[in-house]
């Protein structure tokens, strides 16, 4: 069997960041942001001796009188209305604990879940006992953030037909800061697969259900498409590009001439992402 061995090579940093904003104010913990006391302090800052000091490493964002520092890489911080993809870790008395790559486990209350049959009724003791029948430990769900508790824990709900347990597909875990906020996070790509871009960094790729037929067949038939998409997403993430439907699609198209397993090689990755970047820039202006 032929094996391929690769040696690590010094990578030249892509300093030609086309279109990247170089005017950002970058800070590290301990840096003074401003000594003007007129500003309100937001996340990532703290007040020390009449100075506003940064507490994380990142870029300073200013909205009128509010200053906050957006950290480069954090766990997911929930905001109401975000779509997330999570994995059930525990089944508790009246709720499920969901892992969403945030600081504390998220909570999915039994009352926030749609009952089969769509009835609106009070959840009874039998429903509690039947909880495990709906969602078990290890299941993947897509949900929306309903509320955020004071300590940062997030409460989810699946009160819509588009949310719920996920079937066959591939999960890709990326950093939450790379997922672009858009109007919709459920995309059907023309290549035959659909993708859910969770705000928490969990991306779910699955075959587009065509008229709800052929579930098992759909996955196997689309295996190549799904694998290619997954590798494309990973290459975009390595090059720190924002993830949204257009960028994923362009990356997919740019990768078609290569073999699926070659996409993960650093040089090919760079090539594909450069092409994607150029296409995106052309499209913008």
């Amino acid at each position: 069997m032929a094996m391929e061995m690769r040696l690590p090579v010094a990578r030249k940093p892509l300093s030609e960041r086309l279109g990247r904003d170089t005017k950002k104010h970058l800070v590290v913990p301990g840096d003074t942001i401003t000594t003007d006391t007129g500003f309100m302090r937001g996340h990532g800052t703290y007040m020390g001796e009449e100075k506003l000091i940064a507490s994380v490493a990142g870029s300073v964002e200013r909205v009128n009188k509010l200053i906050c520092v957006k950290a480069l890489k954090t766990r997911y911080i929930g905001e109401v209305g975000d779509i997330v993809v999570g994995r059930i870790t525990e089944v508790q008395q009246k709720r499920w604990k969901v892992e969403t790559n945030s600081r504390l486990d998220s909570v999915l209350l039994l009352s926030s879940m749609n009952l089969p049959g769509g009835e609106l009724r009070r959840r009874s003791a039998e429903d509690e006992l039947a909880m495990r029948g709906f969602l078990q430990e290890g299941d993947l769900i897509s949900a929306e953030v309903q509320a955020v508790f004071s300590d940062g824990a997030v409460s989810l709900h699946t009160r819509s037909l588009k949310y719920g347990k996920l079937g066959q597909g591939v999960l890709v875990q990326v950093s939450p800061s790379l997922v672009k906020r858009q109007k919709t996070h459920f995309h059907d790509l023309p290549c035959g697969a659909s993708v859910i871009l969770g705000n928490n960094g969990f991306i779910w790729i699955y075959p587009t259900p065509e008229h709800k037929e052929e579930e098992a067949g759909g996955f196997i038939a689309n295996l190549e498409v799904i694998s290619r998409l997954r590798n494309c997403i990973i290459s975009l993430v390595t090059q720190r590009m924002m993830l949204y439907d257009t960028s994923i699609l362009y990356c997919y198209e740019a990768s078609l001439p290569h073999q699926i397993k070659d996409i993960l090689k650093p040089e090919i990755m760079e090539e594909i992402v450069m092409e994607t970047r150029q296409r995106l820039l052309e499209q913008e202006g």
Partner: protein
Amino acid sequence: MFVNLGWQGMGQGWTQGSQLKGARGRHMQDRERKTGGFVLEVTQLPLAEALKVEGEADPQRTVECELEGVGLAHVSVLFQIRGSRARALPDRALVNCQYSSATFSTGERKRRPHGDRKSCEMGLQLRQTFEAAILTQLHPRSQIDIYVQVLQADGGTYAACVNAATLAVLDAGIPMRDFVCACSAGFVDGTALADLSHVEEAAGGPQLALALLPASGQIALLEMDARLHEDHLERVLEAAAQAARDVHTLLDRVVRQHVRE
């Protein structure tokens, strides 16, 4: 000083120099507790840095202390935040530090059991240092675990652990008051020396370990072994502080470069 900073790699790019290299990320699954973690490898190698400290008693004798590429300690840091009910404090985060030393870290290969005294003590010291630096009020009911493993020990292991853990905590996006920079210092033959190597430590003179928050000049932890006359304390402290500030400059530069990318 020369720091390689790696983070959970989504790709396999390797770089040299004080740039970032994608390191393999390991996602741990534990049965009792759900954890998610990153393995962050930080290797710290001192460059040939000459720290000249003049002995006041004898002006002709200038002592040059050169640190040549032998290495303070290589530290690999893994940390995670999780919500745990077991030992959770309701209003702030618990910081848990564990120190371990690889068998190949010292001159002779020695197997160290995990719960031994030195590890526990180091862990406790690291915990005190980081509880002072991390803003724990922002993470109630959570635990922040910092696991440090020494890959090569050649004196100054505490300092290297603290510096590496600072970078790791920073990379995780956990809010901190400031960098924590640490350095060891000692007193040999009337001169204050900074950043002792293993040989110098083994010589048996007084040693000082200092962890500093550079921006405010506050001391997070100050620890000393053996006896030192208080007249000399000032100088030794100053040497350690200066070295810590140099470390800070380096870490600062590396982190800014990282953030820029």
